[in-house]
């Protein structure tokens, strides 16, 4: 996981992009492919997240009674619709992966010692995996009309049961 910063002396190549004695070769080893993918993922997921998060904020905070409308019955009403289940699932995964990669880059930037970087990333990846799996489990196993619950706290369609 830790990569010591060492000067790597490379064999000159005919396609070297060299400006003032400094090489600006973008594709070197296979090691850089992950960073390229992560860079692209941040931009692609960012565009999708703007739509998903702005839609989420508009529906939950702006429409109707705003934040006062949010309760167990509200969530039950939303997740009864597969459209909002898929919306929230995609938003959860993209936002968590986008945020986890962002924090990974920040750890790489500011944690100077190899062991510090390693353990901060272990903590980050464990916490992220836990939250992603918990959120996914909640969306798919949610019971909007639990047996024995106070009917006044549930979505209106529960009273038909």
């Amino acid at each position, binding site marked *: 996981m830790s990569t010591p910063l060492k000067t790597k002396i490379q064999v000159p190549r005919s396609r070297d992009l060299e400006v003032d004695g400094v090489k600006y070769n973008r594709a070197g080893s296979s090691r850089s492919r992950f960073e390229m993918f992560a860079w692209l993922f941040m931009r692609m997921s960012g565009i999708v997240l703007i739509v998903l998060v702005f839609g989420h904020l508009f529906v939950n905070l702006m429409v109707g009674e705003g934040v006062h409308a949010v309760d167990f019955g509200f969530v039950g009403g939303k997740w009864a619709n597969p459209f909002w289940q898929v919306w929230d699932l995609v938003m959860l995964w993209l936002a968590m992966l986008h945020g986890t990669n962002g924090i990974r880059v920040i750890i790489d930037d500011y944690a100077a010692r190899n062991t510090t970087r390693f353990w901060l990333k272990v903590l980050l990846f464990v916490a992220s995996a836990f939250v992603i799996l918990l959120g996914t*489990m909640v969306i798919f196993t949610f019971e909007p009309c639990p047996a024995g619950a106070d009917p006044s706290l549930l979505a209106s369609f529960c009273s038909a049961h």
Partner: protein
Amino acid sequence: MANSTSGTLYRGQYGMWSWVAHRITGVAIFFFLLVHVLDTALVRVSPEAYNAVIATYKNPIMGLGEAGLVGAIVYHAFNGLRIILIDFWKGGTKHQKGLLWGVIALWVIVMIPFLVRHLSVVFGG
């Protein structure tokens, strides 16, 4: 030539501060997201447990916190688009400062109606 007193085109100027703000808002949003998934997970515990915790989101102090969170999200979103334009649009680097003013203008345009609506919901009872 750049030196430590005059700085560079980047250091200490629009490019740097927009980047600092992007990092700070990103970290803040990430930690809120962790908490938000955990509080939403309470729907698997009981309606009462979920409603009790969500009720705290409805008090005026948390309402102000939500306004700050949305302000951070809107900045991060529009500045993210600016970064994409700098990376992919031919004129992006040349116009990065103008794009930042665009980000700030869009932020104001979105935040004014949001704050009017959200704060009247939070403080209007």
